[in-house]
């Protein structure tokens, strides 16, 4: 049998376009556009400026906590506490504000978010309590603290000027949406451009390899939950302004929507893969769905069923895609 020589460097055929459309990149935006077309066709009000501004304002809280959740999930962890943090932040923010003024209140709110996040981080990185458990404890504990501090009652009488954050506009864009956009941009920048962001992916992808590569795994984890806490702090302040009172019952099950947004966006729940860009899409899907279904008068009970189906669909489509390659 003879040796058949081929040309030394035979070009490998590249791919035909139809077979490998980058669905990963255009799939979800396409879904969002289709949702817009669908809802707009049934109720023309969907496409009005007023409604879209409304959506932007509605999704901004979810967007804010989802940024933090993205960090937690990317690091192969999870933050179940963000919903409850909204409540403790709101209560502390309002109480401080009544005493020391608007600026102090805002600061105190963000600070308490950061402190709770730091505690999560220390429990996870130093005491090595699994993230699910540590943040579950925080979910329960922070809610309890919010209820205790407020006596279970709303804290009213906040200054009118504080209203601006939740209800104001700059150039016709709702301020909460602007804040959310800024935080998302910062989150995006951190993950894609900083060495800390890179370390988050490495820790989430293979903690042991990351450790052997000289990454300070504990520090990365602490920072991740600290960031998530800060995001919840900012969200809590904005939310407090929207309802113009301190509310110990705010944010129930919001952590689950944040997780859903991250997962629908296409980040891997097991960590190491994804990003804020994806989460933004996930937040938009949930936000538009909620708004559109309201406009076409689907009851809020039925909406929950729809969201459940969407979560499964999103992950299933992702799985199919990754199985194909």
């Amino acid at each position, binding site marked *: *049998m*003879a*040796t*058949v*020589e*081929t040309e*030394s*460097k*035979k070009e*490998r*055929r*590249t*791919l035909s376009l139809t077979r*490998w459309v980058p669905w990963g990149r255009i799939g979800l935006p396409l879904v969002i556009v289709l949702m817009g077309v669908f809802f707009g066709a049934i109720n023309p009000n969907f496409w009005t400026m007023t409604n879209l501004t409304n959506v932007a304002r509605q999704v901004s809280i979810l967007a804010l906590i989802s940024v933090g959740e993205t960090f937690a999930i990317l690091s192969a962890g999870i933050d179940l506490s963000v919903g409850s943090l909204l409540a403790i932040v709101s209560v502390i923010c309002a109480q401080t504000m009544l005493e020391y003024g608007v600026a102090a209140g805002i600061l105190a709110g963000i600070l308490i978010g950061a402190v709770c996040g730091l505690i999560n981080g220390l429990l996870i990185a130093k005491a090595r309590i699994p993230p699910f458990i540590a943040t579950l404890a925080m979910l329960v504990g922070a809610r309890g603290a919010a209820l205790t501090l407020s006596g279970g009652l709303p804290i009213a009488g906040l200054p009118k000027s504080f209203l601006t954050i939740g209800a104001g506009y700059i150039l016709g864009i709702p301020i909460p949406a602007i804040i959310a956009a800024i935080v998302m941009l910062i989150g995006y920048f951190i993950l894609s*451009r*900083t*060495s*800390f962001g*890179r*370390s988050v*992916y*490495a820790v989430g*992808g*293979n903690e*042991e*390899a*990351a*450790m*052997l*590569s*000289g*990454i*300070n795994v504990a520090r990365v984890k602490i920072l991740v939950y600290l960031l998530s806490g800060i995001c919840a702090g900012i969200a809590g302040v904005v939310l407090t302004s929207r309802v113009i009172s301190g509310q110990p019952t705010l944010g129930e099950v919001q952590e689950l929507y944040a997780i859903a947004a991250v997962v629908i966006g296409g980040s*891997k729940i097991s960590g*190491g*893969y994804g990003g804020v860009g994806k989460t933004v899409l996930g937040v938009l899907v949930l936000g538009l769905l909620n708004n559109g279904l309201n406009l076409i008068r689907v009851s809020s009970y039925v909406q929950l069923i729809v969201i459940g189906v969407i979560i499964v669909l999103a992950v299933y489509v992702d799985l199919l895609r990754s199985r194909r*390659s």
Partner: protein
Amino acid sequence: MNGEEAIKPFLEMRGIVKQFPGVLALNRVDFDLRPGEVHVLLGENGAGKSTLIKILSGVHTADEGEILLDGRPVHIRTPHDAKALGISTIFQEFTLVPDMSVAENIFLGRFPSLPGAAGFVDWKRMREESAALLRSLNVEVDPRTPVRQLGVAKQQMVEIAKALSMQARIIVMDEPTAALASAEIEQLFRTIRELKARGVAVIYISHRLEEVRHIGDRATVLRDGEKIGTVPLATTSIDELIRMMVGRELKEKFPKVEVPRGEEILRVEHLSRPGVLHDISFNLFRGEILGIAGLVGAGRTELARAIFGADPISEGRVLVKGQPVQITSPRDAIRHGLALLPEDRKRHGLVLGMTVAGNITITMLDQFTRAGVMDLRKERSLAQQFVERIRIATPSLDREVRYLSGGNQQKVVVAKWVGAQADIFLFDEPTRGIDVGAKVEVYHLMNELVQKGAGVIMISSELPEILGMSDRILVMRAGRICGMFHRSEATPERILDAAISGEPVYACMEA
């Protein structure tokens, strides 16, 4: 040659085409297999060897082409189909369940039932049959041990036992010896010869050409997804095989450069770890490559991990550049200028879901980060250098490493550690699974390191590489150093002798 042609193949693969995103992995490849033969698949990293056998074992489906078994076309869509047709496969990347016992892994998916009580597992029988299998392979493992606790070599033997237990007609072995040392390899070869005698056919993939010539009957060479040819091994020289694989002549297999020995850079004194390492002392100099040989389980990996702070030590001390240092974590080690290229690339070496560039540069973040912000352009050019240098076959820097072939993954691990800012390099099986051409490139990289004044410790189960590249060679046995040889006095016999029956040597310090 014509006489052989007459033997009818019982397996044929015809015109196999497989396309991955950005890569044509196989382009109209033909392959055939005769009863009782060992048919070797050769080719550089990424040539398509594993892809071909994955198509045969139902992991991938071919885009085009057909498979005939006993002259009849068969459709193999899942690993289960392949098993039903009598094809059993040892994959390059392990497929064991870490938290299950050895016995459970061997019988995974076909646990024996208790007589008369279907659905109830006959644990006793499973354990006994596993133990018998392992004994026939000369492996000392309790079948009840969780696989997680085994090193790669033992895991490899369990994979082999598992494939053997299926009573297949065709056994596919994708780099079964990459993790093994000579004694285990001999054992494996004995087993393969027994299989041959029973008419079982073996498809065998390896980058160790000497061993391939030793065990194989015919070889098919792939290059860039194309079949270059099939040749009888008895009449084909290694150089000819290499030329078919890489398309050019390979001048030197071990481009050793003698570098004058510098000052002492690492000193290990009386290092112990209960049950694993016993009173180990040696030193390493700038400009030196110190080879560590030994059988599998001799404690070489454990020694590297202990020095690097990945495992705790109970006694002894480590001096770096003359100063005693406390190394209790890999971060400490890295701070003192150490780098460890780990043996198990999937578990310790790579972040599989991260890109090629991301993996290569993870140890070099400081080199292109300012005030926490990375200079992504600099990162890419850094990564690109390595990709070209050791020829990592990847369609782009942004491909996730999980999609690279095994050898190319290993090259990423090498790049990642060679580029780290360190001057004491602990390389644990650095060329495992890397093709002949790229191995030379890895040796060149090691030469560069020692020429720049670094010291390199190279743990390897490939004796030729140890002999070819080391200035000094330590031999380990049962957690002790049982021999030290200078380059000039080392022979394969002396090293093997020390590895199998050497007495402890405590005087491994040189001035």
